[in-house]
């Protein structure tokens, strides 16, 4: 079977404007959650979030290009540039037809939708900017990345709420394995920290008013973030032949559906997805040295995820640290599992486990080592990243240290 490795990584997220600064922030146990600054914030019940600060679109894009680029597309493009630079990929005409892109997003151009609803409903105008549709469509980020790098092979977007990016990366893995592509840019991005995006989440009443404390007994809900990450997935022999930097091997992927409830998490679905990912990677649970949990910080998710992990890992769970970096960068919804894969890469490459910050007290219902509050040095040869979406769609990635 064709094997797949990661040869480049890029990100823009609340913790950092690239991969090194993100690792640094994770190692320093920084929390990027703070007061929201969107328009009409006073009318929001939820007033905290993890915003990407200091991101100046004009510093990254030409003026003529900007009217076409929603913020979620900007995050994806800047991340993709970083990933491509690290991978050192120069694609010939033939290579281009064997290279593609699949990105995840849950909300697509949600801020564009919000802005233009304001224009027609609140301001009562009868005309919107001509690029509203190409700017808001969910595939805008994938399409712009394809154009930026001449990726002429498979290109599409996955949208499975909080598992979008893991589903995207799973598709990228399978496309390369299947021989339909040799190189795939993949990951995800999200930008819905606007009035409408936050107001919608507020309605579910699962949002924290103070901060995000996954697995902590006093956890109070989830906190939204924004940003994204993009990786270069490459067929292993090709990467080796050109002497590319190999950050890790994409060893396995598993997915499942709960087929039970539209919002309540379920144990069986995640268990099957994790087992499938391990089997796909050819690894026993004992081989996993770090798990990046879905860990949203809601009462139900964390309890159910801990139970599912206990079922999959058995006694090994006591020796397998499980952290939720959402405590630091917030829940980037459709882009979240892409940023969280960085924590797995950091564990494999640098031997440092990202912590679960804001952790005050262990919860007997979440009997796991959450790497509370400070990063930890530990050797991990394989890592697992969980994403369990609303709608009961689960996607789990397993990475292995580059041989």
């Amino acid at each position, binding site marked *: 079977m064709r094997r797949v490795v990661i040869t480049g990584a890029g990100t823009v997220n609340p913790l950092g404007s690239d991969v090194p600064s993100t690792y640094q922030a994770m190692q320093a146990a920084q929390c990027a959650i703070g007061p929201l600054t969107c328009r009409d914030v006073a009318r929001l019940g939820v007033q905290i979030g993890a915003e990407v600060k200091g991101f100046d679109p004009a510093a990254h894009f030409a*003026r*003529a290009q900007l*009217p*076409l680029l929603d913020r979620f597309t900007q995050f994806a493009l800047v991340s993709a540039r970083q990933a491509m630079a690290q991978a050192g990929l120069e694609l010939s005409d033939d290579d281009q037809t064997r290279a593609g892109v699949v990105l995840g997003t849950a909300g697509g151009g949600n801020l564009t939708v919000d802005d233009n609803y304001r224009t027609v409903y609140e301001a009562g105008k009868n*005309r919107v*900017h*001509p*690029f509203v549709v190409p700017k808001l469509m969910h595939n805008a980020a994938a399409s712009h990345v394809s154009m930026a790098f001449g990726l002429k092979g498979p290109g599409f977007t996955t949208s499975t709420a909080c598992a979008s990016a893991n589903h995207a990366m799973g598709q990228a893995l399978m496309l390369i394995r299947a021989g339909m592509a040799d190189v795939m840019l993949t990951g995800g991005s999200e930008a819905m920290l606007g009035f409408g995006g936050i107001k919608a989440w507020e309605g579910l009443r699962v949002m924290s008013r103070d901060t995000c404390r996954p697995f902590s007994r006093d956890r109070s809900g989830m906190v939204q973030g924004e940003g994204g990450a993009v990786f270069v997935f490459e067929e292993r022999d090709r990467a080796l032949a050109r002497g590319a930097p190999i950050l890790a091997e994409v060893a396995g992927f598993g997915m499942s559906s709960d087929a039970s409830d539209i919002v309540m998490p379920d144990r069986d679905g995640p268990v099957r997805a994790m087992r499938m990912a391990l089997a796909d990677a050819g690894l026993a649970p004992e081989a996993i040295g770090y798990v990046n949990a879905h860990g949203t910080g809601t009462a139900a998710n964390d309890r159910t995820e801990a139970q599912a992990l206990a079922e999959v890992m058995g006694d090994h769970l006591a020796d397998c640290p499980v952290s939720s970096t959402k405590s630091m960068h917030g829940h980037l919804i459709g882009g979240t599992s892409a940023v969280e894969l960085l924590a797995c890469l950091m564990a494999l490459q640098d031997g440092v486990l990202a912590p679960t910050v804001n952790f005050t007290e262990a919860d007997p219902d979440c009997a796991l080592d959450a790497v509370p509050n400070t990063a930890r040095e530990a050797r991990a040869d394989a890592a697992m990243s969980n994403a369990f979406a609303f709608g009961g769609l689960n996607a789990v990635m397993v990475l292995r240290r580059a041989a």
Partner: protein
Amino acid sequence: MGLDFMLDENLIAQRVKEIIAEQALVEPSEVREEMTLADLDLDSLGLIECIFGIEEAFDVAVPFNANNPEESGFDISSVGAIIRQVEGLIARQAA
């Protein structure tokens, strides 16, 4: 912007040139009436943005159909042609 201003043809021409210049990434002084949109390197998206800019600036509805620009009843053959039609739209609206 008052109606008197809108009816001043020199000012209309100047504003249209500014809108086109903005999209063509040139100075308004470089936009001349005999120029075509191709002379200005304006692609179809740039043209659509110009139409939008004109509608916003003069509060008129430009009868432009991107599916079939030739038959949409709005002549885009040159900068001057666009200006003349904008003047017409404004005059009809004022009438």
